[in-house]
């Protein structure tokens, strides 16, 4: 599913501009996901220093997807991008079990952020193409996702590399873009 088709589905949204924020640890696959959505080449990706943004515009309606670097050193800057976020997409490397605790902690902190309160969260359990990837259910349990009660959320297994599961997740995004609890 490309950014344009997401944009078309979103057009029922009352706002003129939809802002999607991609966060997660370094090497989770955020940039690959962004490029996959924008139908760009994903074979030359390098670590994100700072952020990447992709915008699509049609008939006065705009979709912005922000992909912010996940390196610990720049995580303090994440908060600069929270304002007016409609959907948070949190990406997890499902094969990097050693860092489940770290990623869970970061997610918990995001959910506690005032500027993100009520913002729907889609968690992509990425890298399912790897044999060692943990299934989404296991991650959901490990991260105690059921304790998130103040917003709608969803966990979706996917592979940003092959594209599998990405559309399902983005369909959920389209359905919930207005579900932000004020």
């Amino acid at each position, binding site marked *: 599913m490309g950014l344009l088709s997401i944009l078309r589905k979103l057009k029922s949204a009352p706002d003129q501009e939809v802002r999607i924020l991609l966060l997660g640890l370094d090497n989770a696959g955020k940039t690959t996901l962004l490029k996959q959505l924008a139908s760009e080449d994903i074979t030359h990706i390098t670590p994100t220093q*700072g952020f*990447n943004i992709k915008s699509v515009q049609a008939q006065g309606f705009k979709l912005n997807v922000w992909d912010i670097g996940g390196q610990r*050193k720049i995580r303090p800057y994440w908060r600069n991008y929270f304002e007016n976020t409609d959907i948070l997409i949190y990406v997890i490397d499902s094969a990097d079990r050693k860092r489940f605790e770290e990623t869970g902690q970061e997610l918990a902190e995001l959910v506690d952020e005032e500027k993100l309160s009520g913002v729907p969260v889609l968690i992509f359990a990425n890298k399912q193409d790897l044999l060692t990837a943990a299934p989404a259910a296991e991650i959901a349990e490990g991260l105690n996702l059921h304790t998130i009660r103040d917003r709608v959320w969803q966990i979706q297994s996917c592979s940003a590399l092959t594209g599998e599961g990405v559309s399902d997740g983005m369909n959920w995004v389209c359905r919930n873009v207005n579900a932000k609890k004020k």
Partner: protein
Amino acid sequence: MIIHLWRYFYTNIFRFWLKWIVRLVTGKCELQRICNGTRKNAERTLRIEYSLESSKYKSLQNAVNATEDEVEKYVAFIIEEKKIKIQKDIGFASKLQLCLLQISGFRKLCLAVEDLRKQVYNSDSKEHEEQLMELWNLLMPHEKLKARITKQWCDIGFQGDDPKTDFRGMGMLGLTNLLYFSKHYPHEARQILARSNHPKLGYSYAIVGINLTEMAYCLLTKGLLKSHFYNSVPGTPQLNDFHQFYCYLTYEFDKFWFEEKPESIMYFNQYREKFHEKVKRQLLDYNVVLALKNEK
């Protein structure tokens, strides 16, 4: 639309007739005119390349794909095919040969760089691990690495405690570039590393380096480095010549970054793009040579 039409007619019809008329008047074919009319620099090789590529003869088009060993054969073949009287144009054969060597060398270099890029960093490979350790030792000669997996890697600008995931799409090309710069310009590398720890303008040395590998790689694969290599390498460019260009980028990017004084590291991609555009503009010049000169 009009421009497209003109271009179509020009490349398909007018160019041929124009060349035919000029050949009648001067008695020389286009390849000869290029060899005689241009100085010995990228302009000559680029124009020869274009002329061969747009030739109506398949056999001449193929000359740009010749391997190094086939170059001589192709020169003889072109002389015969174009009925060139070499007695009247003594320098022609050697000039053409040099151009073909550069053209074939550039294409070979692209393949070699691609091979290295496709090699994924593998922690099970002794060779890869040794190179990684060597990088540490060159950049941090006074500090010992406490373990293979350690937060210390962040000190030279990797993202986390294991650099292996940072090479990503650039594979071993990224590590080779970083290592080459540290080995051949140790003073500059350590100086830039020290500057990259600047409290306000700092950036992550290693991953910015990998980003610059990607820049060098893109410039190469898009053919934008042709002029640079045709001017700086008289025969066939080697991998080291590519690494040298990378060194130039690293050195110049650091200078550019501190001159521009970005608000924070979050603006990296905007400034990277600005720098990229600057380099691309420089590469448009036929006389361009982008090199760091003070090699130790």
